[in-house]
């Protein structure tokens, strides 16, 4: 803006911004540092530099749970969910963006209104349904619902409407292309930027989900990362170094994703907000 700030104002402002930045990062920093210290060290003082107990803490963790198994379960749930959600959302978005059929508006508003429904509303019914279908303790009920992702349909649809012209599709039809070919070879690649942006969110949401796997899975060997971590305090009662290390391992993939894709993530967030 146009106004000038005094030196004092400037200093106060920067101090404030930096303190907030420190507050945002410190818990993660302490997590990494404490993961390398022994329990005794942690109980005695506050540490700002790494210690030498990383290996010991790792052995303590692996002694009771295989933390990489939690990783694997998380990946088995998240990756297929992302693919399903990407493919079917793009398909639905294309259907809404480029075809003019009866009832289109109503159906689209219906999808939008489901976005307002709290996620946990149907959880109990879902649990009962899966019990009847004998799908408890299976990964399937955690993956399949991803094929209906309303937010992603909404986002990809507006992208397709804005960036893929009707004449392109008409040209393909005149050339004798089949509908499946048009969708797979034309629409899917062209809509990829929007699909990729939304897929980051699908991945993070699936990876972070705690309540659904807690309800639907029984065997400890199938627990994804958040469930493993939420139980970790009970397992290592007083071994804080090991707990810190477990938490650190669990959040690493998400931190990498967030830092790498922060630009697309921020873009994805803001487009949804400004349109809604």
């Amino acid at each position, binding site marked *: 803006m146009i106004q000038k700030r005094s030196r004092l104002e400037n200093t106060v402002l920067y101090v404030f911004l930096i303190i907030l930045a420190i507050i945002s990062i410190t818990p993660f920093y302490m997590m990494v540092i404490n993961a390398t210290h022994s329990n005794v060290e942690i109980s005695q003082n506050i540490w700002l530099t790494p210690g030498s107990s990383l290996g010991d803490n790792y052995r303590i963790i692996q002694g009771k749970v295989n933390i990489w198994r939690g990783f694997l379960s998380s990946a088995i749930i998240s990756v297929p969910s992302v693919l399903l959600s990407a493919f*079917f959302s793009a398909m639905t978005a*294309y259907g809404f963006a480029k075809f003019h*059929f009866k009832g289109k508006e109503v159906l689209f508003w219906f999808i939008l209104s489901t976005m307002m429904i709290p996620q946990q509303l*149907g959880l*109990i019914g879902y649990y009962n349904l899966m019990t009847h279908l004998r799908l408890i303790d299976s990964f399937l009920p955690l993956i399949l619902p991803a094929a209906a992702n309303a937010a992603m349909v909404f986002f990809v649809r507006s992208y397709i409407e804005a960036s893929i012209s009707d004449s392109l599709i008409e040209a393909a*039809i005149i050339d004798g292309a089949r509908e499946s070919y048009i969708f797979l070879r034309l629409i899917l690649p062209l809509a990829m930027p929007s699909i990729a942006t939304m897929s980051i969110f699908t991945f993070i949401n699936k990876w972070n989900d705690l309540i659904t796997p807690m309800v639907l899975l029984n065997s400890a060997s199938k627990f994804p990362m958040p469930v493993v*971590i939420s139980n970790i305090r009970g397992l290592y009662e007083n071994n804080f170094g090991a707990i810190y290390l477990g938490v650190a391992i669990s*959040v690493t993939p998400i931190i990498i*994703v967030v830092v790498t894709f922060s630009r697309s993530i921020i873009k994805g967030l803001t487009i949804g907000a*400004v349109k809604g």
Partner: protein
Amino acid sequence: MTTRIKAAPPGHRRGFFDKRDNKGYLFILPFFLVMLVFQLYPIVYTFALSLTAPLNLFENEFVGLGNYTRLFANEVFLKSIFNTWFIWLMNFIPQIVFALFLAVVLYEWKVAGKDTLRTIYFLPNLVTAASIGVLFAVLLDWQYGTMNHLLMNLGVIKEPIHWLQNKMITRGTVSLIQWWQWFGYTMIIIMAGLSSISDELYEAAFMDGASRIQLFFRITLPLLRPILLYVFITSLIGGMQIFDIPRVLTNGRGAPDNAITTMVLYLYNQAFKNFNIGYAAAVAYTLFFMILFFSALSFRMMSGKTKEKGGLG
């Protein structure tokens, strides 16, 4: 457009899908099937369950609104409503104040390292809430926790604080963690709102000698109303469903004395620990109607005001 309609091959009766636009139904069909089976059916089924109670080990009986009347006579449930609101408000109010200030500062002023700061503030938002809960539980441990060490080293306190034993402090801790996770997100959303306000308005007001404070209250805030409504409603929907952090922080007990038993934590414990399925389903629907009511109310209040303004200006 008529050119889009493919001519039917000779000797072929014109079917429904020969009209190209009707093929759109095929593209949206899988979505609706999945939504029907995995989302809508469970929601309806949950409602049906909320009207039943177990008769014996294998059968349920219809009890009408019995679960709902039991629910509202239950002290722990009423407490969970209070806790949920308290935790949400104690986090939302400071969150929106910080977010507004930071958004204006980072958007309108020249600040070095803007993009880096934005990413740093936003980072806690997407990190697994369950892990964040465990992290804070150990950081705030009264004996081993880094927080008490820090405060004692700085001389702020003499005795270690039992962060997770006092009711108010425990609730405050949950709000603090929520604030820490969400102020950066809200800031980013508000910045997007700011980018849609035209500079000319500010320049005109500035020419007329308006101060920075006046600009904020007379121009920025009123024009941000739609985005603030969005933030309010999404935060309300999310905040009413808070589960991960209270659950992890106290190993699911909601202790001390159910101080951080939120509505969804209560729902989870009733359904999957005590197996009161029908009763827990009633909790789910009470939560839903509460969210619906307050979203609609805030929508009416906020958009009503916008219209009034629009009429005047």
